[in-house]
């Protein structure tokens, strides 16, 4: 997609098209919290704020963030080689991994580190932003995108580590839902 096509996403996040990734992220978090919760800023004009409209805005904001996240990942990836580095899994770890029943952020991180995988390589390979993976590991639920996107990211994460994508995603999403 040419950069002009991303303008509407920058617009949705109230940014100019030369905004940095960190600005995209900050604006996304701010807008998401502004339109998901009540505050004096929105209550003072409640009569202009229909629920549908609010919902529509939240969807636009989510979409814009997801699209721009890809945009930045692709930009970063242009210069990098996207090849999955090979890693050896010893028997003991393999055993442990196949026996895992729950997958908290902390446990995922532990596995990844044991496998010697770094998030940057993973981001380049999966074309998913590193920040997302960090947020998944740290269980920063409020910073994570909507569930549909999140599920996709977790599955990619799991696949990369040779974990069962469905199993990991189901368990993680459940935790995410209860936390919200």
């Amino acid at each position: 997609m040419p950069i002009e096509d991303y303008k509407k996403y920058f617009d949705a996040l109230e940014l100019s098209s030369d905004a940095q990734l960190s600005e995209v992220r900050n604006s996304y978090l701010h807008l998401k919290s502004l339109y998901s919760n009540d505050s004096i800023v929105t209550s003072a004009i409640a009569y202009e704020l229909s629920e549908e409209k609010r919902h529509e805005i939240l969807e636009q904001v989510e979409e814009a963030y997801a699209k721009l996240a890809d945009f930045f990942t692709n930009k970063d990836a242009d210069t990098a080689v996207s090849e999955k580095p090979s890693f050896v899994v010893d028997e003991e770890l393999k055993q442990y991994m196949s026996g895992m029943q729950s997958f908290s952020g902390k446990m995922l991180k532990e596995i990844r580190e044991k496998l010697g995988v770094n998030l940057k390589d993973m981001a380049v390979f999966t074309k998913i932003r590193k920040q997302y993976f960090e947020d998944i590991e740290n269980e920063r639920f409020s910073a994570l995108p909507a569930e549909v996107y999140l599920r996709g990211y977790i599955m990619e994460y799991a696949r990369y580590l040779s974990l069962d994508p469905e199993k990991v995603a189901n368990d993680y999403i459940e935790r995410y839902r209860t936390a919200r």
Partner: protein
Amino acid sequence: MNNGAHDKKCEIWAIGGGKGGTGKSFVTSSIGTHLASKGNKVVLIDADLGGANLHTLLGVSKPRNSLTDFFEKKASLNDIIVNCGMPDIGLVSGTLSSLDSENIKYAQKLKLFRQIKAIDTDYILIDLGAGSHNNTIDTFLLADKMIVVTLPEITALENMYHFIKNVFFRKLKIILSAHGLKDMIQDVWKNRDVHGIKHLKDVVEHLMGTSAHVRDIIENELASFKIYIILNQVRSGREVMIGSSVKSVCLKFLGFDAQYAGHIEYDESVLRCINKRLPFMLTHPFSHVAKEIIKLTENLKDGRQITVTADKYANRRL
């Protein structure tokens, strides 16, 4: 002959905001003081005809002339600009002796506006009164930069939204009238139930749907319509974010551009200073408040806005 007086463009800034006591006059006088200290010629106009007090904030106890002379004695605006102790700052005082401020005749209003635009200076700052009276709104619309001062308080925000909506509506009305479509907005609004119109944005969308001609007119107007927001009396980093949120609501719900020009923290010395009739910017030049006013003035000059982010502000103490 025009001796080049108008070669340099004079900018008119109007400061309004709906609610009383938000700090409009304090902000106007402080911005004016800063602009003058940077070598600009500034004329401040107190357009709060019902409750003029800008002179007090500038340390003038009894202005020699005021708009009374303009309205009742037919004096020209240029002749009633009074000096207020600081070089390069002139004041048009709004103290009225008898005139009923809401009953200024239409012709007088037009004459005043004409003469305001003709003042030979670098900046004209207009301090508006509270409320959304048509005279207040028309004066606000006179400006090149329309600035609202609001507070992190629900009532102030409510009045501010009401004010800017009225400003926007009035602007649309004026523009459509100029194109011979005088009653269009009223008609649409009167029949809003028929058209399924609930919100301001619906009105605009409905109007734009009526014809390509009307759409062009409105889109043109929307493109240049911009409100600058100043958030005053801020007490925490979290409150700083409110300006960004207001900007977003204007953009997404009201459908027009707003810029967050800056914020000013709450500081008790402001009141102390005002009570002593001392200009704050000169007595407290190194205070946070003064620095914030300098910053927002520069932002307004350049049409820049601030971006505040939760990670930096939400937990910050002022």
